[in-house]
């Protein structure tokens, strides 16, 4: 799925030269409460744990429904870590930070 050809809304782009950049995609539908919450939680999380080495692409499936197939999206909201490999997927509003850390391999599962 080449999402760059579409019109993703780049929310934050802070890239220091050396560190590996995380590419994160957030799939949402419209501006539902859950979607808004997930975006806010994701931004907060990235600021806390991945300062300046992340890039978030928000994809609104209502506008781009065909993009859902590529990352096998069923649940909304879903965050997909495209880079670094392997691909990691977290579904939900990301309210449970501990689970997000485990899900993104930032902390080993307890």
């Amino acid at each position, binding site marked *: 799925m080449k999402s760059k050809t579409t019109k993703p809304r780049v929310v934050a782009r802070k890239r220091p030269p050396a560190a590996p950049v995380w590419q994160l995609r957030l799939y949402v539908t419209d501006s539902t409460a859950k979607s808004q919450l997930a975006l806010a939680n994701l931004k907060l999380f990235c600021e806390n744990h991945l300062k300046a080495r992340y890039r978030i692409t928000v994809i609104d499936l209502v506008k781009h429904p065909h993009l859902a197939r590529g990352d096998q999206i069923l649940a909304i909201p879903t965050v997909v870590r495209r880079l670094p490999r392997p691909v990691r997927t*977290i579904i939900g509003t990301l309210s449970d930070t501990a*689970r997000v850390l485990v899900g993104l391999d930032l902390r080993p599962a307890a």
Partner: protein
Amino acid sequence: MKKHRSKSKSSANALPKCPTGIQGLDEITAGGLPRGRPTLVCGGAGCGKTLLAAEFLVRGAVQFDEPGVLMAFEETEKELTANVASLGFDLANLVRRKKIVVDYVHIEGAEVRESGDYDLEGLFVRLGHAIDSIGAKRVVLDTLEVLFASLPNEAILRSELRRLFRWLKDKGVTAVITAERGRESFTRHGLEEYVSDCVILLDHRVNDQIATRHLRVVKYRGALHGTNEFPFLIGEEGISVLPITSLSLNHTVSNERIATGIARLDAMLGGRGFFRGSSILLTGTPGTGKTIVSANFAQAAARRGERVLFFSFEESPAQIIRNMHSIGLRLEPLVRQGLLRFHSARPSLYGLEMHLATMFKEIATFKPHVVIIDPITSLMGSGTDSEGKGMVTRLIDFLKASQVTSLFTSLTQGGHALQQSEAAMSSLMDSWILLQDFEGNGERNRVLYVLKARGMAHSNQIREFLISDRGIDVVDAYIGASGVLTGSARVAQSSLEKAAVLAGQQEADRLKREVERKRAAIDRQISGLRSDYESESAELRRIADQVGTSTRMLTTERAASGILRQADAKVAAGPRSKPRNGNHHS
């Protein structure tokens, strides 16, 4: 908009149906699945859920111009395409022509973490997008239950599934949802709770090492449907369900009669043989000549220029041809002319369903006038009794509907259970001919009789049935006080009879001669007596003449002497001298 259309289609009383195009299923459900509603298809592993769903979709796209979306949770598009290709469906082509969209939904449970609340809007978006992209009217979700393994939060999943089915109804698409069979419920995860309009249960059972698939419409809200379990087949042209009840008893019947190839048997059947399109049962113990009678019938039909399809479950075609040649039946030229076709298969080769499928297919392609199944019993052995009966019923129905005369041979194991075991099948048959062995005098002899023949006056007599190198000969069996005599006993009896007749004749001749002799003797006696009488009467006449002459002479002499004596009695001459004998005048 779709919602509106589906609403407008539904009439006030009848539930609108969506034809599946699957052979037999539309008959059971009286028209198809409920249009615009979801249908649940559940069953265990390998019973054909996905194929049924895929066929529903493909036939919709091809036959009914209803594009469809296949959302696959278990198999990839490539796998699906390969799988349905075996049924003759070109899924890839349909996808290219935008008749079908295949969306493979895959979630690796281990790769997905949950954090916080979510819903399945992504699924809705994908499905909605797929539906809208081709204007789909049909949707298949195969198998949704995979989600239960992928998404740990069952509460969310259940509420989302409920919403999904609601949403599908609102979309106005006819949906088929497949689900794994549960231990105690229809589905492992209780999907029947959400899909309540129509539930179809598939089943794959093994009987005596032979597997047969069954289909049952468990529930069909608001419509009549066949509730029985129907065997179904997955053949080269897709699924075909074989309903027994859908084919009602309304075949057209023919008054045409066709000869059996055995003149005497024709004579026993009212002189003209079987009715065309009737079903004939030929039962007999081993070695009674069932195949021979069948082959005779086949040859007679083929010689009339009819096509004959001979299903043999015991012998290979070459073997039948060779064996029949030994009794003077030449089948090979008929095979070469394309009038006679053999189809041989071991009954245990595959299940009843496959046999039926291949037979239906053969019949459909060859379009025979006469079908012979030899023997039906070995075929029935590959299923349970009821399955066998059901199968025969369907076969008979199918053949009757297409005006094919069918002859089934049935092998029975000896003596008395014979009629009993065949009772179930015989009620389906129009004619029933029994071949039987009679044992006695150190030999076995075959007899034949017509047990029943619907709609014709038939002989009630037992006939002996002889097989020689010139073919079959049916002769009168001797029926006497000691029972039916056949073979050498019959011959002995008839020679006995002949001897008795001869003796009687001789006695009569002797009597006749005696009488003749007596009559001759009497005649002789009579003529002797007559000659006696005649000689006596001649004597008498001679004597009388003598007496008269002497009297006259005496009178004359008297007169002469009187004259000589000068007697006065001129008058006393002749008889007038009488008064002298008495004094009457005094």
